[in-house]
């Protein structure tokens, strides 16, 4: 029995080891057989992120039909890992570099390094480098969703609900009392969504009052725990819940459901997310999540690949060649967020 156990474990280990071996071997072969093939080095902030994975999938789908090889690296939400990744890719002499940058302060340095190697550098879905830095090198670009839009969409939806439903002011203090579920401190998207959503509500002439800002690291379970506590403390004060992403919004909804909300029309509380994930859209259809917005990863991924392709062909990146709006100075590409509510859930398909 014992021998059998050791044997099976040894086999399991051997299997996993050969599995790893195979993967690296085929990768080597791929590299060796493609000496004259162009390679795009791509640095992503976190392979574990739903959105990033979807974007990477879209890039590889686009790359399947093209002739540029992708070499992707995971920064694991760590600036120094990101720096190492960038340096490694540059040492490998990649022909293009894309950075899903989590270190805005490092942008000038990255641009300078790319300039030194004379390769295009594209900042993807992150805070933009300053115009001065971008203009310092004619092959530096920035492509991103307009992060503030996702905040504005939340703000507009909340304002609309507030104006149409007198009962929305649950404690009758004349102010929109809200909870803000924050994704990650210092993260650009998180910051924009947190600020712009409320800014828009105020612009719409509604007074606001922050009940509590809770840092939930984009996590559903964390949001569920914290919102449960806030409900227990201030149940009758909560008018609206803003969440920086759908996962946290859905965590909040679980907590609300557990304490008796969403049972009927009178126990409805508007909860707003961002991302329009599949579970998020299901919740919108079900009538719990009020709205979300979509930054389409397929559009982002395929556009990034298209940019690389255009550059490899020596073409200029313009609104005409790319099929997306390119800024006048030619180095910004802004992708629009799409508002998703019960009326247009089909727009969330990609």
């Amino acid at each position, binding site marked *: 029995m014992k021998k059998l*156990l*050791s044997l099976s*474990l*040894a086999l*399991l*280990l051997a299997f*996993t080891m050969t599995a790893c071996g195979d993967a690296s071997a085929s990768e080597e072969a791929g590299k060796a057989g493609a000496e004259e093939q162009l390679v795009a080095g791509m640095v992503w902030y976190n*392979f*574990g*992120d*739903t959105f990033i*994975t*979807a974007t990477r*999938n879209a890039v590889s789908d686009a790359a399947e039909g093209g002739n540029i090889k992708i070499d992707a690296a995971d920064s694991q939400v760590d600036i120094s890992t990101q720096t190492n990744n960038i340096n490694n890719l540059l040492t490998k002499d990649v022909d293009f570099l894309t950075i899903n940058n989590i270190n805005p302060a490092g942008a000038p340095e990255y641009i300078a390094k790319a300039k030194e190697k004379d390769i295009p550098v594209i900042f993807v879905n992150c805070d933009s480098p300053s115009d001065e830095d971008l203009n310092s090198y004619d092959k530096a670009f920035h492509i991103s969703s307009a992060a503030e839009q996702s905040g504005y969409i939340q703000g507009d939806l909340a304002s609309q609900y507030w104006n149409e439903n007198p009962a929305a002011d649950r404690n009758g203090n004349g102010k929109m009392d809200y909870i803000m579920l*924050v994704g990650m*401190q210092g993260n650009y998207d998180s910051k924009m969504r947190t600020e712009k959503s409320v800014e828009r509500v105020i612009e719409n002439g509604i007074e606001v009052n922050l*009940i*509590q*800002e*809770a*840092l*939930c690291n*984009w*996590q*559903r*379970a964390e949001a*569920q*725990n*914290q919102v*449960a*506590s*806030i409900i*227990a*403390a201030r149940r009758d004060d909560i008018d609206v819940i803003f969440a920086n992403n*759908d*996962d946290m919004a*859905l*965590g909040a909804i*679980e907590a609300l*459901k*557990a*304490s008796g909300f969403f049972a009927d029309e009178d126990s409805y509380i508007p909860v707003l997310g961002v991302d329009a*994930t*599949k*579970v998020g859209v*299901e919740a919108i259809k079900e009538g719990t999540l009020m709205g979300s917005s979509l930054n389409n990863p397929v559009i982002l991924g395929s556009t990034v690949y298209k940019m690389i392709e255009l550059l490899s062909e020596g073409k200029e990146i313009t609104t005409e060649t790319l099929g997306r709006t390119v800024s006048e100075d030619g180095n910004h590409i802004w992708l629009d967020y799409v508002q998703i509510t019960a009326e247009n859930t089909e727009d969330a398909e990609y």
Partner: protein
Amino acid sequence: MVQSTGVKKKFNKQFFLNNGLYVVMLALIAVIAFISPKFLSLVVLRDILMQSSTRIIVALGCMFILIAAGADLSGGRMVGFAAVVSGSLAQASTYSNPFFVNHADLPILVPVLVSVVVGLIIGMMNGYIVAKLDVPAFIATLGTSMFIYGLNSLYFNLPPNNSQPLGGYQKAFTELGAGSIAGIPFITLIALGCMVFVFILLNKTCLGKEIYAVGGNEEAAKFSGINIFKIQMFVYSMAGVLYALAGVLEAARTGSATSNYGAGYELDAIASCIVGGCSITGGVGTVQGVFVGVLIFNVISYGLTFIGVSSYWQNVVKGIIIVAAVAIDVRKYRTKS
């Protein structure tokens, strides 16, 4: 006269040192309740127990390892893997974005059992690497944690799911996580069951005594005829099973799962165990201590959110509590000797 007050003082000090953990927790509750009296309510108690339930199960797994003088960094990722595996198998056939296309409604025992078996296999792998291949536990489990996370990400990214958060579970499965009987959440009952099971195993069986013996002094245990390999295999397997169970319940409780579930739970579990009186050097640890250790952390995060303290301060307080609790604990043994 003088002597007796001296004894009394010593007794008080000893009492405080022995029960420092409980004193800290009661003080915390008192402060929070003073600021917001509503804190002393059944709803709050229920919420805290519910939020602690999965954490307790993870911490119990971690406790086995710590008692046997091991280390395990794979717990969090194991929770995540079990959450995704069980979630993918617990979906209702009517859900529009299924992980497996055209599947039937599986009895919910299937996702639970499959995940637990996966946890068992990975736990055995940990045990084998540590006990047979002599890789330091810290490194071995760091390795497996990456390995599991990678596997989980690959699985989670399978088409047609493509890394979308899972949802659309069968009612019976969400009920497992969110339902209750006579006001007591199922998951709290399950956590309680695990505590009783582990308590009996550690205190009333030979195996339990052998685990303490191995952790206390491995050489001595070896000479007294204890099979170290068997014990190591057992503790890591047991931990794997408990982590997996916690992962299943986490998926059920939140009604979703992603490959990021469980991230960081291993460190929380180690912290709870240490605060609850487990020794880093092995041989010491009790179920009730670990229970209070987990509870303290959940009282802090729930309570501080309850009175509106910012998330950043919560970490400051948690950090202080960890250090303070261990500082008191160290003194406990010092004064005794």
